């Protein structure tokens, strides 16, 4: 929740379903609407951006109910009385109207689709959210709650989107390059003035077809030539060359401005390398290209270069480009790709292959205690296996004992005390009535919990796992942005941690044992993540101190 003043605080029940009403508190500030349950184990708190709520709140007749439409769903709250409800509506509506008015002012806000989803696949995302309740819940909690950004949330779900795209009605075959050769397209008109519009895809295609162009680009732009000059020089040459081929041109064969970057041998080697990964029986283009790539004496140099151009073009068209919608924004921007993007652009058309199915192994933790203690074990084991002892060592020990006799006392009282405390903890921890209850309750822990509790546990686990995934992705903390994101996620994780603690503490008896057992792996994961962050931050601080220290010495 942000720092702005709350304008409304009301005790309301959030209606999850017909049977389930969770009592809690509704707080409205100028920017956010927040509902938090009294009992954190019953439900996750809900956050909604005021700007995302339309100012049409629906009141139920004869019942103290209020329906608040938020992105992707509607929240239904039950007030204590109708008067109460109407008072609240009177307070909230002006805020909503104000927010709507303000929200319209910046263009970016106005362009946002009503669902709050952005990007070229908003409809697809909307559909996914509607179909998957868990996903919807996660989305509402993390994205609407402001913990993750829209892009971050969908970044890890590209495969889901692809799958949906494949399955949906408007499934299109992935777009490859246009087969028309670019040099042909650009020369139209015949006049001296040729207008070009370069899209990133065209640039990518040109680079793929003419590696020497790419080498020239990386070497010359922006140090020697501006981007515009670079392409002007190149297309002047192309237009002249085309004119010459058609017999219209005058004078000598035009000179390739980037001739010095041509390297037949290198191109040939690259083609060979690529050939290793392509089925030669299928990829005729690569095959022909490679045969023709080496300068042969029999053909005229002009025809040879033409054959090579066509083959190279065919090879690039076959290799394809990624669908613009999934990565780049697809707009006609004159933004040439960097070398990294170029290499990633060399994707084989996905829909010609079997879909990649992720081979995930199911995580089965039958004994959480073992999982819990394994980390501690590893530490002690490494200390113990320093030296392997043999029977000879044991013999020495018995000999020493034969001579010296048994020491008195055989055990220090300090050690005995520690052992007794340990045994007491063992008896108390899993023993007593709880153990008996565990024994009596047959079946797995899940079977002994109420469906409501299970749903909450599931939700907690899903949320925490999603957060953990994003959290680990922020390492290493190499930039301030990453650090900030890690810190933000760490806070969210700490909240989840407190929530699990609260759940454990508020539950009773056998349920508590089961909840503790089910949450153990999760808590372990959270512990590890939080410890990792602390360690990483400490390391960075020490490193910063060291570098600043060395600078100080240099200046001194």
């Amino acid at each position, binding site marked *: 929740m942000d720092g702005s003043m709350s304008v409304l605080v009301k005790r309301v029940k959030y209606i999850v379903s017909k049977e389930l009403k969770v009592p809690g508190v509704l707080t409205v500030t100028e920017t956010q609407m927040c509902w938090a349950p009294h009992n954190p184990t019953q439900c996750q708190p809900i956050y909604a951006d005021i700007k995302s709520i339309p100012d049409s709140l629906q009141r139920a007749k004869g019942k103290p109910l209020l329906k608040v439409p938020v992105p992707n769903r509607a929240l239904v709250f039950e007030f204590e009385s109708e008067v109460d409800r109407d008072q609240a509506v009177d307070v909230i509506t002006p805020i909503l109207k104000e927010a709507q008015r303000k929200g319209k002012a910046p263009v970016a806000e106005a362009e946002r689709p009503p669902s709050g989803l952005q990007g070229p696949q908003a409809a697809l995302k909307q559909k996914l959210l509607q179909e998957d309740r868990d996903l919807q819940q996660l989305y509402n909690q993390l994205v609407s709650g402001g913990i993750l950004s829209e892009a971050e949330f969908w970044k890890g779900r590209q495969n889901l989107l692809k799958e949906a795209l494949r399955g949906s009605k408007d499934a299109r075959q992935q777009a490859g390059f246009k087969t028309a050769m670019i040099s042909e397209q650009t020369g139209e008109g015949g006049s001296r003035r040729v207008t070009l519009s370069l899209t990133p895809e065209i640039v990518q295609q040109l680079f793929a077809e003419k590696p020497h162009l790419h080498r020239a680009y990386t070497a010359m732009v922006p140090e020697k030539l501006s981007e515009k000059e670079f392409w002007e020089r190149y297309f002047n040459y192309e237009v002249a060359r085309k004119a010459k081929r058609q017999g219209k041109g005058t004078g000598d064969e035009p000179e390739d401005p980037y001739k010095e970057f041509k390297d037949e041998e290198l191109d040939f080697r690259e083609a060979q390398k690529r050939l290793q990964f392509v089925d030669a029986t299928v990829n005729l283009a690569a095959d022909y290209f490679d045969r023709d790539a080496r300068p042969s004496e029999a053909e005229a140099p002009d025809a040879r270069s033409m054959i090579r151009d066509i083959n190279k073009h065919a090879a690039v068209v076959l290799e394809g480009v990624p669908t613009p919608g999934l990565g780049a924004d697809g707009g006609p921007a004159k933004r040439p790709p960097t070398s990294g993007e170029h290499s990633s652009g060399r994707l084989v058309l996905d829909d010609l292959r079997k879909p990649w199915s992720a081979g995930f192994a199911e995580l*089965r933790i*039958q*004994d*959480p*205690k*073992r999982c819990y203690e394994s980390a501690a*074990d590893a530490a*002690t*084991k490494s200390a*113990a*296996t*320093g*030296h*392997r*002892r*043999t*029977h*000879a*060592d*044991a*013999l*020495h*020990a*018995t*000999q*020493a*004992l*034969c001579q010296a006799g*048994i*020491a008195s006392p*055989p*055990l*220090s009282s*300090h*050690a*005995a005390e*520690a*052992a*007794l405390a*340990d*045994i007491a903890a*063992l*008896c108390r*921890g*899993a*023993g*007593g009535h709880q*153990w008996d209850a565990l024994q009596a309750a047959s079946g797995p822990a899940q079977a002994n919990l109420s469906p409501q509790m299970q749903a909450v546990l599931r939700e907690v686990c899903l949320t925490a796992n999603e957060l953990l995934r994003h959290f680990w992705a922020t390492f290493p903390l190499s930039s301030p942005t990453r650090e900030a994101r890690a810190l933000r996620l760490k806070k969210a994780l700490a909240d989840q941690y407190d929530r699990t603690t609260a759940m454990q503490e508020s539950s009773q008896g056998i349920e508590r044992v089961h909840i503790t*057992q089910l949450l153990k792996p999760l808590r372990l994961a959270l512990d590890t993540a939080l410890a990792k962050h602390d360690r990483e931050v400490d390391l960075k601080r020490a490193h910063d101190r060291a570098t600043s220290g060395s600078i100080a010495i240099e200046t001194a």
Partner: protein
Amino acid sequence: MAPFDEEDDSFLLVVILETHEDLWSSLAGESQSADIGNLSLTSFIQQVLVFLNTFLAINEANKLVVIAACGDHSDILYTTASLHRESQGPKKAASSGNASEEILRKLHTLLQEEAARPGGDSARPAVLAGALSRALCLINKAQVGNGGTGGGRAPGRARLLVLKGSPDATEQYISVMNAIFAAQKVEVVIDACMLGAHDSAFLQQAAHLTDGVYLRPKHKGALLQYLLTVFCGDAFSRSFLELPRPAGVDFRAACFCHRRAIDLGYVCSVCLSIFCENVTDCSTCGTAFRAGRTPALKRKAVGPLS
């Protein structure tokens, strides 16, 4: 539980002491600090001896057998004199003197023999199954002998304590489980104290099936305290005591075909043998599984075999 003779509360304890290099290696060196987490070899033997003496001192009628489980054989280190008399006649009874002296002497001789062997016994796991069977035979003999002389000794008066440090040898799975089931049948409680770095699935199952106590001490240096607190009371007294209970038991089984520890496998519908892969016929009972019909072997989670 069988009815007890109110007057006589003595019982028989059989201790299986692993004398294997794995156990020695899991203990701390002599030079290491005498921290509560570290147990040196000398203090290990010392503390075990103190425990055995204590047991004998609790009740003068208590009987004790100590069996050493080595790399390829088991050896009896000590037997209470009265057991000798009952089983082997009076001529051997004279040999018993101070228990710890005798155990130490025998252990010394045994270790001399073992140390003289070339190669050490890292390749030979300790014969847990053999030692268990031997212990059960001894218990049975003692009980039958007693019953024969009119003592009316009922089952439930004998107890087994295993002190182990080496990891489980899955190739012994079948024989160990058979020994455990035998103990369960004759109502012999198996207690286990694991000194290695990891829990032992065999011993956990043994304790679980025979209603014993499984313990892996956190502070190994204070082993004696654990032994005295947890393993000194007899099976009857335990009904009044609150003893440590594990949060979970590792029920993993070893397959009969490759002796691999598995938690999901195929089970023969006739004899309940466990296999890690689909087989055409059961190697134990010879049942042929026909492929065309509903599969006779169903992949299911291997649970406790009881």
